[in-house]
Structure formats: structure tokens, C-alpha cells
């Protein structure tokens, strides 16, 4: 007889779910939401096994866990998207009999914002903010009331209210997400669930959102907060509940919830989510690989000149939508207003005019959104990996899958990709491993310059560490890496230089000695501080 998995885990030390500093008597009345023994399976996959937590009135309660730990399933259960297989949900002390639709969830005072930016692109900002508020035939709010409320909420969130009649697709990603958050805030739900909803926000909007959450808390409104970013978690949370493999591991009060402790609980081991300090570029050969000459991202903007050396790692930072992505795409042969990109290799210089030429000269662009920009979810792991480099597996006009398999096997080992079957759909892998597949796809093209668009966004601590390790390895052998990151800590730990973008121009270039949290964040807002 062997011990089953659940037994093995229950033998680990557990932390009381109620915490140590509870005041039991009064707390019972203050609970707004309570879940017990929640479980949900999809086919053979147990996404949620046994999850329990409670949410007090006026608290910000964070749920933390690695990718695949069941956070999203939990949120979808609470939001009425999924019906739990077993377990109970209590709202204000009343046992909920049924919550089988998002509408019912909303009726029960639970408002949810998801990680995916859910807006209807061609419709106006106002329509998007009020999306779903009307019945099929009935208009519930007048136009003036709509404008007034939307203006108030967007003003709090964005500082500056965008044109309410503009199509929402004309806004930046961060502002679009602000619209979906505004949609939930308008209804003033007793419980606001933010499922990684902050990952698309720029720093300033996120800070304003946190202010709003604090004000709400004073009025006794609660927040269930989900985020991978440790700084956000420690900044805003009153309590943190950690989950692993669909189960509650424990709940910590703010004071106990140090990053190290949280990571230990999430992973069951001592992996830090902090980026390790990367060794600075070793080779001082000054061999220039890539050169941007007078690139203007928009007509009339200050042209950008940039030289990238072999083995160098350059960070692109800034508030969301200030040109980091446009610059990265431009370096990969994308559209610019003016200027040119040159690639140097072995004494030859080539002008890069488009993405195909960029690829031919060894420039690889790894996009930001895994699911919408990189992966073909129903296709196999192998197909997803090999697509842009299929020519390497072609002989006599035909593909030889054994050749792809061999190439994949080598890279999978190097990147530590965990998979059971290379022929299974890539959707069966966890988010972190999917991200590694995307990296492997482009490493297979044997690039000299790697352009990474926020590769660690929304991946778990283990995967982050693996990626940091990989980047060190790659720059050691002379690859140049240019990477957008929304985490200041990553810039501090990894980059040889950081370019802070503002309004489609490079506002400031910081080298290692000038880099600090303050100098980087100040530059986001157009200030020069050391």
C-alpha cells in the first residue's frame, strides 16, 4: 500500500486557517463571504480539491498560489462561471443554495474583474463601462446619470477622464482594463474580486486603484485580490491565503506575510521569486550587433539612436503605452515613422526592413500575450514549438517530425520544460511551461538578438527563476537581450542598461551605477532623480 498524495501533504505543518490574532466572537458577524471545502473538476483534472477561506467586511484579502494552483477556478466559482462540484459558499452568513450564473453572483453582491481585458473594442468608453447594466428591452439608467457616474469612477482611476464617446479600442491596454474595473466599481459590490486584473495596469493607475480599494475598505466593502506580484500583495493585503494544488495551505496576517514565507508556502520549497542578481556582461569586446539609427516611433518625436552589443541585456521600462512595445517591435523590423535598423555580423552590415528580414538576420521577437499572440492552443506542443523553424526539418519538400522531436527534446531539457507528451495539445501544459515553449520556439531559430516583451508577466516563481537563469546563460554566450519588463525589480537585478520610455521617446538611459528603484520610477513620471 502506498500513501496517497493528500495524506502526504496533510503531514506537512499546517497553519490555522483562522490565524492567531483573531477575535472570534465579533468576527463571525463581520464575515461577508465564506467558502468551505470547495471542489471542482474538469474531466480528470481536479482544479480545485478542498479550498476554504473567509472574507471579512472591509478587508483586502489576497489569494496567492503558483500557476495551476486553482486560483482562476476559485474565482470562476465565486463569479458564477463554474458551479462547484462540492463545498459551500456563505454570503453574509446565509448558505447559498445556488450560484450558477454570473448574473446571480452579481445579484449576491460579488463583482469580478478578470485578467483578460474584457471590453467590446468598437463600442464607446461609456457603453463599455455600463456594459450589461440594461435588460434586454429595458434601459435602467438615464444618460446623464451614466455620464456622471462613469466620469466620477474613471476620474478616480485614471486621474484624467478619457473621451467617453471614443471607441474603447483607441485607448491603451491599461486604460482599457481600467474601463473593465470601472464597470465593476460602478455597481459598488460588497465583494470585489480582482483576478490578476492589475497585471495590465500601469503603475500610476494601479496606485490610484489601491487608493480606491482603501477608501472602499473604510466603508466596509471587501476585496478578494489575486496577483502574482509580491510587491502588490504586501502593499495592499490585510490577509493572504495561500493555495497549492487546489487546496488551502494557510492564511497569514499582513505582518506574517513576508515574500519568503509566501513563496515557501506556495511552492512547498524555498524558491525565491526575487530575481537573482545577474552577473554584468563579461565580454567587453564592444562587438555591436544591432543598431537603430534615428528611429522615430511617431512623426515628430525625438529620434532614437541605440547600439546593442553582444552579451548585453537592456531593459525597456515606462508606464504602459509609452512606446516600449513600439520600440521593441521596431527593433524587430516593425513599422516606424522614420529611421533604420542595421544588423552587424562578421563585418557585414545589413539593413532590416521588415519582420522576415529581421528573422533572417537573427533577430527574434517573443510577443507578450501567450494565448492571443503566440500559442495555437489545440495544436500539439511539438507543432507550437517548431512552426517558425519547420524548414530545418524539411527534406525533399516533406517534413520529418522525428527531426522536430529531436530538436525539441534538446531545448526542452535545457529550459526545464515539463511535459508528458509532445504530441498532446499545448493547452494541457501550465502557463509557465507554455511560456517556456514560446521561448524555445524562438531559441530554436538560433537568434543573435532576442527581443522579449514582458516574458515573466503572470508566470509563477519557479518559471521566473528558470527564465532568469536562461537569460544569464544566453547573454554569457554572446546573445543580446532587449526586454520589456513591468517589474522594477527585474530591471534592477538583470539589466546592464535600462531605457525609460516616456511619450514614445527615450526619456532616460540608466546604466548599472545609476539604476535604483527611485531613479527608474521617477523617470516613469518624467522626473530625473538619482
Amino acid at each position, binding site marked *: *500500500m*502506498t*500513501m*496517497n*498524495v493528500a495524506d*502526504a*501533504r496533510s503531514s506537512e505543518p499546517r497553519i490555522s486557517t483562522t490565524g492567531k490574532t483573531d477575535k472570534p466572537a465579533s468576527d463571525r458577524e463581520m464575515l461577508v463571504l465564506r467558502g468551505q471545502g470547495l471542489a471542482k473538476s*474538469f*474531466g*480528470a*483534472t*481536479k*482544479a480545485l480539491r478542498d479550498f476554504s477561506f473567509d472574507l471579512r467586511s472591509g478587508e483586502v484579502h489576497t489569494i496567492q498560489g*503558483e*500557476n*495551476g*494552483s486553482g486560483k482562476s*477556478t476559485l474565482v470562476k466559482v465565486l463569479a458564477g462561471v*463554474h458551479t462547484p462540484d462540492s463545498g459551500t459558499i456563505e454570503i453574509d452568513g446565509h448558505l447559498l443554495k445556488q450560484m450558477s450564473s454570473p448574473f446571480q453572483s452579481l445579484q449576491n453582491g460579488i463583482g469580478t474583474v478578470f485578467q483578460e481585458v474584457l471590453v467590446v473594442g468598437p463600442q464607446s468608453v461609456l457603453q463599455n463601462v455600463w456594459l450589461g447594466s440594461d435588460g434586454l428591452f429595458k434601459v435602467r439608467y438615464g444618460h446623464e446619470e451614466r455620464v456622471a457616474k462613469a466620469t466620477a469612477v474613471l476620474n478616480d482611476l485614471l486621474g484624467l477622464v478619457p473621451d467617453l464617446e471614443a471607441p474603447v479600442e483607441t485607448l491603451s491596454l491599461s486604460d482599457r482594463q481600467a474601463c473593465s474595473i470601472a464597470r465593476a466599481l460602478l455597481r459598488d459590490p460588497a465583494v470585489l474580486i480582482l483576478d490578476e486584473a492589475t497585471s495590465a495596469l500601469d503603475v500610476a493607475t494601479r496606485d490610484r486603484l489601491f487608493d480606491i480599494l482603501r477608501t472602499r475598505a473604510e466603508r466596509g466593502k471587501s476585496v478578494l485580490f489575486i496577483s502574482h506580484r509580491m510587491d502588490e500583495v504586501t502593499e495592499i493585503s490585510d490577509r493572504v491565503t495561500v493555495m497549492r*494544488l487546489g487546496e488551502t495551505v494557510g492564511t497569514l496576517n499582513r505582518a506574517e506575510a513576508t515574500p519568503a514565507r509566501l513563496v515557501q508556502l506556495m511552492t*512547498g520549497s524555498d524558491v525565491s521569486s526575487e530575481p537573482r542578481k545577474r552577473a554584468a556582461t563579461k565580454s567587453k569586446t564592444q562587438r555591436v550587433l544591432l543598431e537603430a539609427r534615428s528611429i522615430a516611433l511617431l512623426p515628430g518625436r525625438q529620434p532614437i539612436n541605440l547600439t546593442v552589443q553582444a552579451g548585453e541585456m537592456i531593459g525597456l521600462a515606462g508606464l504602459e503605452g509609452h512606446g516600449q512595445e513600439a520600440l521593441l517591435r521596431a527593433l524587430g523590423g516593425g513599422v516606424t515613422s522614420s529611421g533604420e535598423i542595421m544588423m552587424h555580423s562578421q563585418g557585414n552590415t545589413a539593413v532590416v526592413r521588415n*519582420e*522576415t528580414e529581421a*528573422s533572417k538576420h537573427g533577430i527574434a*521577437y517573443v*510577443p507578450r500575450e501567450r494565448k*492571443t*499572440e*503566440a*500559442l*495555437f*492552443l*489545440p*495544436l500539439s506542443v511539438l*507543432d507550437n514549438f*517548431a*512552426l*517558425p523553424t*519547420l*524548414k530545418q526539418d*524539411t527534406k525533399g*519538400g*516533406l*517534413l520529418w*517530425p522525428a527531426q522536430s522531436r529531436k530538436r525539441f527534446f534538446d531545448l526542452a531539457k535545457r529550459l526545464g520544460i*515539463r*511535459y*508528458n507528451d509532445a504530441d*498532446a*495539445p499545448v*493547452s*494541457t*501544459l*501550465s502557463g509557465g*511551461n507554455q511560456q517556456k515553449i514560446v521561448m524555445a*520556439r524562438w531559441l530554436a531559430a538560433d537568434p543573435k538578438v532576442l527581443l522579449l516583451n514582458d516574458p515573466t508577466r503572470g508566470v509563477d516563481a519557479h518559471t521566473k527563476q528558470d527564465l532568469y537563469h536562461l537569460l544569464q546563460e544566453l547573454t554569457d554566450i554572446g546573445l543580446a537581450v532587449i526586454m520589456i519588463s513591468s517589474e522594477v525589480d527585474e530591471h534592477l537585478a538583470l539589466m546592464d542598461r535600462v531605457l525609460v520610455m516616456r511619450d514614445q521617446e527615450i526619456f532616460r538611459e540608466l546604466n548599472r551605477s545609476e539604476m535604483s528603484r527611485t531613479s527608474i520610477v521617477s523617470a516613469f513620471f518624467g522626473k530625473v532623480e538619482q
Partner: protein
Amino acid sequence: MMTQPDSQSTAARDMEGQQLPQRTLWQSVVLLQRQFPLLQILVLIAALAYGTLTMDSFLNPFSVRTMLILASLLGLAALGQTLAILVGGIDVSIPAFIVLGSTLITQITGPEGVPLGLAILVIIVLAGFCGGLSGWIAHKYSIHPLIVTLAMGSLVSGVLLGWTNANITGVAPPFLGALTRPFASTFGLPVPPVVIIWLAVGVIMAVVLKRTVFGRQLYATALNPRAADLALVRTRFIWVTVFAISAIASAMTGLLVVGFAGTANATLGDPYLFQGLAAVILGGAAPLTGAVDYWRTMLGAMIFTVLSTLLVAGGFTEADKQITFGLLILVAVGVYGREPRVKDRV
């Protein structure tokens, strides 16, 4: 106490959502059905068995050969539709290109006196250009192919009608008739050449879709066009090629159809729009998951032909026939149309 289980690796497997499967029999059957058209094969066998048991003449050589010819023509006409559905579109100009093929081959080799080889070349170039243009317009301007191919089909039919003045005088070249004559044989094999052509096309399609760069790029373009663009797939080229192949395949089917029918007319291609779509759908095409293959369409074409034959031979009316296929298409869409994608996403 037995040995401590390797909880780390078990945990790792769990996180990937790939535990050892504990499926019920029903779940296994559904899963299998999604990967392999088991149900279709059972239906085909049952239909053949029913025909054999209830009708004396059902399995005689003439009837079998006729069914094979009809299935081949339908299967070839549905080739373009399979590709159009695969990339997430539809091609309603197929009847027009069947008429284009059949009209041109009878008119320009007959009354106009153009040599056969040249005539076929002209047809391929014309159809390829018009079809490719449809794909280019649909991709470039993001217009649904339903609209573009509707317009193109109307345009092609209109020009043909104007040119022939609805008076097609030529007859099919005799060798085309030989390809589809029930008692013709192919290199000594006792089957009409059109069946061998169909099988060869099936093999070529399987190789192209599974074992060429173009095939893999085709699926990638179908499933996530934006990611395909970023993975340096020339998606517009893929669309142009798909609709060009669809038009060419339809025009070539037109040659075989006119050979079978003897003379061309403006409505010769009409039945193949519905029947071709039915063959693709009955074969179990599921574009959302990329489970679209030509061999599935071939299976669908055979099911359609055998069931039609049974219904006609059984004395059912055209009304009964249409009701039956309407219901069957609904069943197929119920099984494949909406994929439980949530299960893939955890």
C-alpha cells in the same frame, strides 16, 4: 508503512493537469469520438449492412460502382470546402467554378476548337486567379469569405451565362466520359478511374496537410491568425492559396461532372454546395480545434452517398431526404460545433 511516495513529482504532474486518467466509459467514448470519427464509420457500416439485407440489388457491381462514382464526385467537389472551412471561412463559389470547368471544357474544345491540354491549362489559370482573388480580398479587407465568394460566384456565373448566352452546344470530350463510366476499369483494376483519382487526391491531401510546411502553417493560420503572423507565417499567402486551390479543385471536378452528365448547363454545380458542406460537416470537421482533415470529408461524402442511395431506393421522397440530412447535420454540429474548451483551459 510503505515507501514514501515521490510527492514532488506527483505534485508536478498534478499541476500540469495530467493525472492518470480516471474516465468513465462514456467520457472515453466521447474523447475517442473527438479524435477519431468512430460514429461515422459505424453509421457507414450500418447503412451498408441495412442496404445489403433489405435490397437485392444493393451490392451488385453496377450499384456499388455508381455509388463510388457519386461519392468521388462529391468528395472532390468538397475538397475546396474542406480547406475553406479549415481556415475558418466558407466557399459558396464552388458551384460557379464547377460550371466554369464544365462549360469551358465543352465549349472551347468543341465549337472553339482549342486543344484539350491548352483548354485545361486555361481553366486552371482562370479558376486559380479568380479563387485567389477571393482569398486576397477576404484577407486584405477582413471581409467574411461568405460575402466575397458569393460575389465571386455570381460574377463568374454571370460572365459564363453572358458568354454562352445560356446555350451550351458542345459535348464533353469522350475521354472525360470514360473516367466516370461505371464499367470502366483503371490499369486493369475493376474500378472507374475517377475513384482512383479521388483516392490519389486523398493521399496527396493527407501528405500536404500533415507533412509539409504549408500544411502546418495552414492549421496555425486557422487557429490563431495573429500568432501565426508573429511566427512569420505569411497568412495572406495562405488565404490566397486556399481559395485558389478551392476554385481549381472545383473547376477540375466540373470536368469530371460534365463527363459524367454528358452536357453542361448553368445549374450543373448547384447541388454540390449543400452536399459538399454536408460531407464536410458529416465527416466531423471541428474548425475550432483544428480537427479538419480531407479524409474526414471523404468519409462524409461516402456516408452522404450511401444514405442518399438508400433513401431513394427505399422509395422516400426528396422531402424525406432533405429532412434526414437536416437532422444529421444538426447532430454533427451538436457533437463538434461547440467544443467544451473549458476542459482544455485549466
